[in-house]
């Protein structure tokens, strides 16, 4: 198998979905859609947007899951729904609880309208230390970082700069193809 480094597999920052701070949630999602359309190198599309400050430094990240969480935060019962899990209920019971409270929540259309106008910096996540990886890191180390942190993407650094994003899907594809090639050769 080829000795991959992170920089061999990463998506350069210029090809990734980004928005400037101050963008609304809708503008952020449109930026993601546009980047997905333009990025045709692989079958795997981008799943998050990076938020840049005025100096083009990455200050946060909004994933598809983060977006869905925004919608949930608009649900006034979400705190109750979240807190029930600490009382030792099973997933089935939590679903029963959610269904009971669904009728009391605002309709999803209303939630979407409100959420579209929210500012992205209010919901973006600041990447943790474990979400950064150096360009020169080898693939096996990157794999370990993915599996221990349950991340979908890592921010790739060169010195103090962020140069790209290493996506789980690209790492998976590289490893999968290597396995397939070696099997065919045998």
């Amino acid at each position, binding site marked *: 198998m080829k000795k991959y480094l992170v920089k061999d597999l990463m998506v350069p920052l210029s090809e990734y979905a980004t928005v400037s701070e101050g963008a609304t949630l809708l503008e952020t999602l449109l930026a993601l859609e546009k980047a997905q359309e333009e990025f045709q190198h692989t079958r795997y599309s981008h799943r998050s947007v990076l938020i840049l400050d005025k100096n083009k430094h990455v200050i946060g990240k909004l994933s598809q899951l983060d977006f869905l969480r925004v919608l949930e935060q608009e649900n006034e019962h979400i705190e*109750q729904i979240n*807190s*029930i899990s*600490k*009382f*030792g*209920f*099973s997933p*089935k*019971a939590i*679903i*029963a*609880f959610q*269904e*009971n*409270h669904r009728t009391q929540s605002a309709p999803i259309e209303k939630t979407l309208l409100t959420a579209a106008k929210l500012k992205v910096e209010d919901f973006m996540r600041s990447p943790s230390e474990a979400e950064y990886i150096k360009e020169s890191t080898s693939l096996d180390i990157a794999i370990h970082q993915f599996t221990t942190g349950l991340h979908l993407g890592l921010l790739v650094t060169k010195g103090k700069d962020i140069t790209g994003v290493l996506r789980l899907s690209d790492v998976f594809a590289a490893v999968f193809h290597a396995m397939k090639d070696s099997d065919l050769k045998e």
Partner: protein
Amino acid sequence: MKELEGLLDRIIQRVNINLRELEFDVNPLVQNLIPPNQMTKFYAFYGITPHHPLNLQFKHSNLAGSYFLGKCRVTNSLLYKSDIRGDELKKKGDLFQYHNFEIPVNRDEEIEIDDSFLIKTLVHNFSHDPETLEKFFIRDTISIHYANIHGSPTDGSFLGPFSTVDLTTTRDCLIGAFSYIQTGEISHMNIKPGTVWIRYPEEFNFLYRYPVDRLNNYIYFAAGTPPQGIFIDFVEDRKEAFQRIFSTVDVEPSVSVPDSASLDRYSVVKPKTHISANVLVAQRAYIQNSWLGKGANAQENCYIINSRLEGFDITAHGAKIIEADLGKNVFVGFNSFLRGRPESRLTIGQDSIIMPHTIIDIRKSLTIPDSHIVWGLVTNQQDLEENSMSLEAFSKIDAPLSRGNMTFEGNGLSFVASFKERIQHILEENGAFFNENSNEGHAQKNQNISFNTIQPYPKGDKKGLYPTISIQP
């Protein structure tokens, strides 16, 4: 009074250290909650009976207005108008059943209170923790007005007003006002006010959470002021009657008491009350113009006013029943507040279970049918339909159920059976089934009880502290 103040600071610090993970500071809540002069004003007292082993040890503590029975050690603590009732502690030689284990009890169990501040708190029952059979400990803990620590070893915790920990070892937890917890064991949890949680792993899990905005009308507690709300107003309005009882040396019962019944000398009973056979009225209970049928009981801090209890009814610690008619075998759980009105009474059918920490507060007549279970906040028929079920229907639950603010999971039959079993046990313990010489319980055993009083230093640095005292047979 320097030492007393130093003791309070020490307790606050110890509790805060235990609750640091929850980022909770008890200081603003309790620093001026009980004025120091109140801590020096009241005598403490203890009971002696031929039925209960006696061993009381008090060291470097204030015990103002508190009551002790059985075996208890208090060290570096402040106990304000609290009841430490050690009449159900395990005895040497008992076998404690826990799952498939039968664990022998090596020595008489004792209640041990260290570095704690208990305000108007009831401590009762025995430790249900198999890891600490002979020691029912309460340490580094603060509990506020009318909390119940019932069979629950407690460490590093804060219990809000009218909260209850029942048969649950509690470590480093915050228990919000009017919350009831019966889960066996909890640690490092922040339980919000008005949470009623009963869990028996692998069997059932019941959770009800009060709407906080409505609960605040009944009980509200924040830094800077004492607990407020309807519960507190209700108790304060009747405080004077207790002051008379506590300041009088010899108190003759104001009503006729059958030989098999017990009316505690520190209870208030007002006309026209009827006490039937095998009735137990505990200290700090308040009965007015009510009928207590055979085998009924009113436990500590209960109020029964203008009501009729047909018989074998349990009014658990802190429950209040006003303008209500209860059929036979009705269980009213801890700190429940049941209030009808003179022209719109509350009727509870026989064999019904009012779960702990239930509020029924009505302005139109309301009838709870026979054999029903009720929980949460009920102010009208619609609330009742949401927050009650027949015991038969509840027993059939075998899939998760969420209804209103209640969620239940597990075996409904097991849940109902455990309540019924406990009700039977309470009636037995209280002597409801006494028959000539058999089935003796608290109602009979507590008839021959003598009370002694003890006092603190009246002046100087030690003002308010009680001297080290050892009371043994």
